[in-house]
């Protein structure tokens, strides 16, 4: 087998890996949804390209210059979108580590594959119609091809930059801040001064592609070559790290949480819930992202007047309470899929586990309550709104999210640093939308009918009813879980380590 055939064999294996993922095979709807979303975004890109082309019609001399002057905005969007879709070569090469294939060949193969990926052409849905309407009439077809080629090269370079940062993120998550800092600085340079100082150089640079001048091609070519070399070196090192991965094996402190001993079995499940978040990278990251978002939005509302509209105040107050549930409870039972057989061989374990999750996540709402208190003091959020959303979250929204304990049946890895994002199921998407938007609609109608104080009473009363009956609805979920336990357990096993 020559190297070309080997390259295609690995390419085929990677395709099969995605196609034959147990959850993918099981869920025909998800397969349809994935292609639908690709088509949907492609249609949006086409629409944007055409409307922008029409919007700038009559100003053909400068139409594509306007886009070119801010091309880095496209690169920034492209960069961050890749986090949800693209794995690093180091993560992929790990699977072939013990096969008689030279690692450098694998790495070259993956990097070339990443550069030639169809994903780098996706922006074509936007650029082709726009270019047809703005570049071709002014500069002709050859210029259009040069312009598109320039953009493609920029997206390839952007993809390599992403792979580099993503690989660094595997060492430490905070590396993503370096990319965020560069992008923020770039945006600030353009937005803060009265005149965008980068616009003209960017326009000239992109125009040189249009004119087929060799310099921009050489510059971007050199950037790609450098990024390729840097990636190759970093990713090769990462493969060795992945193979010989050594974690901190011994715990420095083993927390006992003795205060929870008095609660018997429930206390043990509460300890488990805390340790799940303290000792596993994925749940820990989810938790801290939730806390970070709560803090960010609360501070934004406190220190700025950007969100001072009625809708945004409601949204941020609700968001502060719901975000922890939306980030951690939305995957309820998915981590437990790793040890579901052990849980299921203990009596009533799922009921006690659900109770512990409910109490733990309810207690965590103390954090947003503390953060919202200063907003109440300065009068941006009323006491009644605060209490309304607090009770509504614990007593109404949590019971909704807990229903996912029945339908979540894909095991999520506990302790990997960074994986392909959990794209979520249809049910998770529906519940997320419901908990983020339905309460605001309910609140607005209620306040409209009953006024700014009494309008929150229905939220508070419904919340109290949900809290008072929590044992009953948790027991109901547990009973229904036991009815469908075989189906769920089979799916947990199938998706474990896949």
């Amino acid at each position, binding site marked *: 087998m020559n190297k070309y055939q080997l390259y295609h064999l690995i390419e085929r294996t990677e395709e099969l890996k995605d196609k034959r993922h147990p959850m993918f095979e099981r869920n025909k709807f998800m397969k349809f949804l994935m292609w639908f979303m690709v088509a949907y975004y492609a249609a949006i890109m086409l629409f944007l390209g055409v409307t922008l082309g029409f919007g700038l019609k009559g100003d053909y001399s400068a139409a594509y210059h306007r886009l070119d002057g801010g091309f880095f905005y496209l690169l920034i969007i492209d960069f961050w979108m890749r986090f949800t879709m693209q794995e690093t070569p180091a993560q992929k090469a790990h699977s072939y580590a013990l096969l008689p294939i030279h690692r450098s060949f694998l790495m070259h193969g993956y990097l070339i594959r990443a550069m030639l990926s169809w994903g780098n052409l996706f922006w074509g849905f936007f650029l082709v119609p726009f270019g047809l309407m703005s570049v071709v009439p002014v500069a002709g077809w050859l210029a259009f091809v040069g312009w598109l080629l320039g953009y493609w090269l920029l997206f390839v370079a952007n993809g390599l930059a992403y792979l580099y940062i993503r690989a660094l993120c595997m060492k430490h998550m905070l590396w993503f801040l370096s990319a965020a800092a560069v992008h923020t600085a770039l945006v600030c340079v353009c937005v803060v001064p009265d005149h965008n100082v980068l616009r003209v150089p960017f326009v000239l640079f992109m125009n040189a592609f249009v004119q087929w001048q060799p310099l921009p091609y050489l510059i971007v070519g050199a950037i790609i070559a450098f990024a390729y070399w840097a990636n190759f070196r970093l990713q090769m090192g990462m493969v060795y790290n992945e193979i010989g991965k050594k974690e901190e094996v011994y715990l420095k402190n083993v927390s006992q949480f003795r205060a929870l001993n008095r609660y018997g*079995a429930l206390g*043990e499940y509460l300890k488990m819930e805390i340790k799940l978040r303290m000792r596993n990278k994925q749940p820990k990251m989810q938790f801290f992202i939730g806390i970070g978002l709560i803090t960010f939005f609360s501070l934004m509302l406190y220190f700025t007047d950007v969100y001072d509209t009625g809708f945004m105040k409601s949204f941020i107050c609700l968001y502060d309470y719901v975000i922890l549930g939306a980030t951690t409870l939305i995957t309820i039972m998915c981590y437990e899929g790793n040890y579901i057989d052990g849980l299921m061989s*203990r009596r009533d374990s799922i009921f006690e586990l659900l109770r512990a999750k409910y109490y733990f996540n309810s207690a965590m709402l103390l954090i947003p309550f503390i953060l919202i208190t200063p907003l109440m003091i300065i009068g941006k959020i009323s006491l009644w709104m605060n209490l309304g959303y607090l009770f509504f979250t614990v007593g109404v929204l949590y019971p909704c999210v807990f229903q996912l304990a029945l339908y979540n049946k894909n095991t999520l890895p506990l302790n990997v640093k960074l994986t392909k994002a959990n794209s979520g199921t249809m049910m998770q998407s529906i519940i997320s939308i419901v908990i983020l938007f339905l309460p605001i609609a309910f609140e607005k109608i209620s306040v409209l009918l009953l006024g700014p104080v009494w309008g929150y009473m229905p939220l508070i009363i419904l919340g109290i009813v949900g809290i008072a009956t929590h044992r009953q609805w948790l027991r109901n979920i547990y009973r229904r879980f036991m009815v469908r336990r075989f189906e769920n357990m089979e799916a947990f096993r199938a998706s474990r380590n896949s």
Partner: protein
Amino acid sequence: MNIKIDNLKKTFGNKDNIKVAVDIEQYEIHSGEILGLVGNNGAGKSTLFRLILDLIKADTGSVRMSNGCDIDINVAETEEWKDWTGAYVDESFLIDYLTPDEYFHFIARIAGMNDEFLDEEMKKYEHFMAGEVSGQTKLIRNLSAGNKQKVGIVAAMLLRPKVLILDEPFNFLDPSSQHVIKHLLTDYNKETGATILVSSHNLNHTVDICPRIALLENGKIIRDIDNSNGEAEAELESYFDVTE
């Protein structure tokens, strides 16, 4: 505790490619017995254990546990049997982000046992754990395969179950630990009268500790061998074609 299997069948695959994993018409494991389960890979040993533990759904039939007096239950219909059953099949029984001691405490406390009971029980397994499991600040996921196996076995036995199910307990263990676990199991059986089910590919160990051995092939028990005199080895060696 008696375990009675009645018309138990489990198949995998679709209608074009059906694989019979378990197909047992009638079989009874008597109270206080140590039953060894042997068979080639894919014979159905682990699937049978999972059916007994209600972890997979049977196509037909049932598994019942009874004590000959007041208890006679179908494991698929109630969770009561979980109070007196201990099992270790694979790593999916372990909560791997706990230390071994935390895991043992978890098992004991959710069953309502206090720390004194746990400390007393743990003493019995000190030799088996050889100082490498208990008292460690390592998480279970960072233990060697053999030590994970030890955690699973000890956790299964910790609450002194009346029914003990261990899937390939000798796997990953060093020779001295294999020797110790054999004695632990036979002593436990004598002391408590528990019904013990053990599957293994190690014929010597199975013959050493199991007075009764069931030989599985394609999901069926094709031989029910009386090994009370320790004479099953020749028959098993002949079946597995491992005679010298």
